[in-house]
């Protein structure tokens, strides 16, 4: 196959490209320039958008003896990921920009362009497994549970999966990948993993958001609407957060309070007891299927609401109004609108839904 290996400059995508070459594919390395304001040198372990990262990718491609190009997706990235990230926060939701990048950039803009330019598939260093069955291609968890990235790939559709290649999915551990990189003479073998959000290089998400959405003083209220404190900008709060509330009025029962809800329109943060965080039901109107759509109206599955959260048994159903409703067997903690719920059947990814609404497990007057 004619394969485009997306190379970030990290060890995973370098080894993935190497394995694609070993498989006998005709491989071209492409580094995505996602920022035009990227720095020259990498600082710490953050990000993947510096010129040094592009150079790391180029040197890995050199080592593999494959052609290498840098493709500019910075405008698409700014519009579809960065601006979306800001808009989601402004709307009081908690977005996952890596997921958005997979959905809109890596497996959409890049994949479309690759296909148009004559490639058969895009290869990345994600830890996830593809399984070709008589019913079609399925997306499964990686062999290494600690590295499994199937959650952030949950947005991929059947059409996208058909042109995708994840050579690292069956690798037992990241250490194996690093050792393989070392053995192959790849200079990125010991490069630190990237963390945090790549377009916020100093890791200060709150400060970054404050610059863009403004910081305006607002009220912190309890579930009855009583003002119990004030804050310097609702965007700085996430559901489930306890620290940094600095409440002037203690709770009547003296117990700690947590952020239950962020209301950007009124710039209000709602707090309450820990039990009130428990969510009995989530639902959303924006969902996709990683393969064929389910043929039942209601079915059992596992639901996972964060990249590293544990999956929870649940019942999912499609409502007549077009929304997908998921009821976990045991209530979920710290669920915020904007987050993505990925549904699994065993190791298989069924699909995902962006959470629009949550239903508390505890009635309001509890």
């Amino acid at each position, binding site marked *: 196959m004619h394969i485009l290996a997306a190379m970030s400059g990290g060890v995973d995508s370098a080894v993935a490209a190497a394995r694609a070459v070993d498989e006998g594919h005709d491989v*071209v390395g492409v*580094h995505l*320039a996602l920022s*035009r304001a990227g720095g020259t040198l990498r600082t710490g372990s953050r990000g993947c958008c510096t010129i040094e990262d*592009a150079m790391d990718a180029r040197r890995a491609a050199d080592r593999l003896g494959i052609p290498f190009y*840098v493709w500019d997706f910075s405008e*698409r990235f700014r519009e579809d990921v960065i601006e979306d990230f800001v808009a989601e926060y402004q709307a009081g939701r908690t977005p996952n920009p890596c997921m958005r990048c997979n959905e809109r950039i890596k497996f959409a803009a890049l994949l*479309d*362009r690759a296909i*148009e330019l004559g490639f058969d598939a895009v290869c990345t260093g994600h830890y996830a497994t593809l399984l070709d069955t008589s019913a079609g291609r399925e997306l499964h968890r990686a062999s290494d549970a600690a590295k499994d990235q199937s959650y952030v790939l949950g947005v991929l559709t059947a059409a996208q999966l058909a042109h995708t290649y994840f050579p690292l999915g069956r690798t037992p551990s990241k250490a194996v990948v690093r050792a393989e990189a070392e053995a192959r003479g790849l200079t990125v073998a010991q490069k630190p993993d990237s963390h945090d959000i790549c377009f916020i290089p100093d890791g200060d998400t709150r400060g970054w958001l404050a610059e863009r959405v403004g910081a305006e003083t607002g009220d912190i209220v309890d579930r009855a609407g009583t003002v119990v404190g004030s804050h310097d900008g609702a965007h700085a709060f996430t559901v489930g957060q306890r620290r940094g509330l600095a409440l002037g009025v203690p709770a009547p029962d003296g117990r700690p309070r947590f952020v239950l809800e962020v209301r950007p329109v009124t710039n209000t943060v709602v707090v309450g007891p820990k039990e009130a965080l428990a969510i009995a039901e989530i639902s959303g109107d924006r969902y996709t299927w990683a393969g064929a759509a389910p043929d039942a109206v209601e079915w059992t599955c596992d639901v996972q609401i964060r990249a590293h959260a544990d999956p929870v048994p649940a019942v999912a159903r499609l409502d007549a109004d077009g929304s997908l409703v998921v009821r976990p067997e045991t209530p979920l903690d710290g669920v915020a609108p904007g987050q993505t719920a990925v549904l699994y059947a065993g190791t298989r990814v069924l699909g995902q839904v962006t959470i629009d609404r949550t239903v508390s497990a505890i009635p309001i007057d509890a």
Partner: protein
Amino acid sequence: MSVYLDHAAGEPLRPEAREAWVEAAAVVGNASSIHHAGQDARRLLEDARERLAAAVRCDPPEVVFTSGGTEAVGGALKGLWWSRPSGSDAIVLPDGEHHATLDTVEWLRAHEGAHPRPVALDDVGRIPVAGFEAVLEGAALATALVANNEVGTVNDAPALAAVAASRGVALHLDAVAAFGHVPVSFREWRDGAAGTTGLAAMSLSAHKVGGPVGVGALVVARAADPVPLIHGGGQQRGLRAGTQDVPGAVAFAVAAELAVAELDAEAGRIAVLRDQLIGGVIGSVPGAILLGDPDRRLPGNVHMLFPGAVGETLLFLLDQQGIAVSTGSACQAGVPEPSHVVLAIGRAADEARQVLRLTLGRTSTDADVAAVLEALPGAVERARAAGARSPSRA
């Protein structure tokens, strides 16, 4: 199959230059040493200086060897700025100059209080002499390309030098893209008008004429007195201290001499190929538009706008077929920026990313032209389809 159509980025090394380079590299001695070994090296160096001076038509002491065109441009602009007449702080800066010039002037603006005075290009990329002259009065210095490295338009360098002289403004000419491809005569341009100020300096690069990368020269008029940027052993009129690169100078001289000797015949031959390529592209690619001056252009330069096809994508598709071309513009982290030259000739930002520069040179043949004419229509069609999936960007 490998087809190289990016001669403007680097002309293949001439075998004669390589031989001379390697031979000179084996000579023992520092050209500044007094002993016989030093004298041997010095002899080679000064021979090279004389031969390059003859090719550029200047006096040997006017040749200052540098590490390349960018160092020459930077040394000229900063050096002339720091030796400017008191009371003047303007730099005449036509649109569409090379980044070596743009970025140096920008640095002088930001750090030294220089005031750039722009000169708009006409729609074929030429610096209008009248427009240039109109902003010369009282300027500290002026700069201009002899030929535009992207769109290939050849300026009227003698006229630009003459108006600079008549206004008493020190002029730097960037002849990096022009030298060896169109006639260049420093002496005639310098002496074309009376007065000591006028053409003060001219930048050259070896690898544009089949010499090695890493060698260039700044021709500095006898009457000019730029402030040196590098201090040390006082070599080269004190303008560029440091042990001199004898093999590099020798190889540059050999390449320059050959380029100038062959210029008439080669420029004619290459221009025929160029015109075949332009005609073939216009005939086979719907909507293709030639940018730059159709007549007064570098013999090897083809610069086309392909509406709807992103240049970066075209470059990739052609490279997949072994055909090396350029988008012509500067790169940031490997990503081509929209061409400031294409913008300067009145094209829109989208169009400035839909261009390709195909440049022919000494080793180009009919077969190269045939190969690109065969590959280009399909590549443009494909790039247009890919572009349509991600409108206005790709």
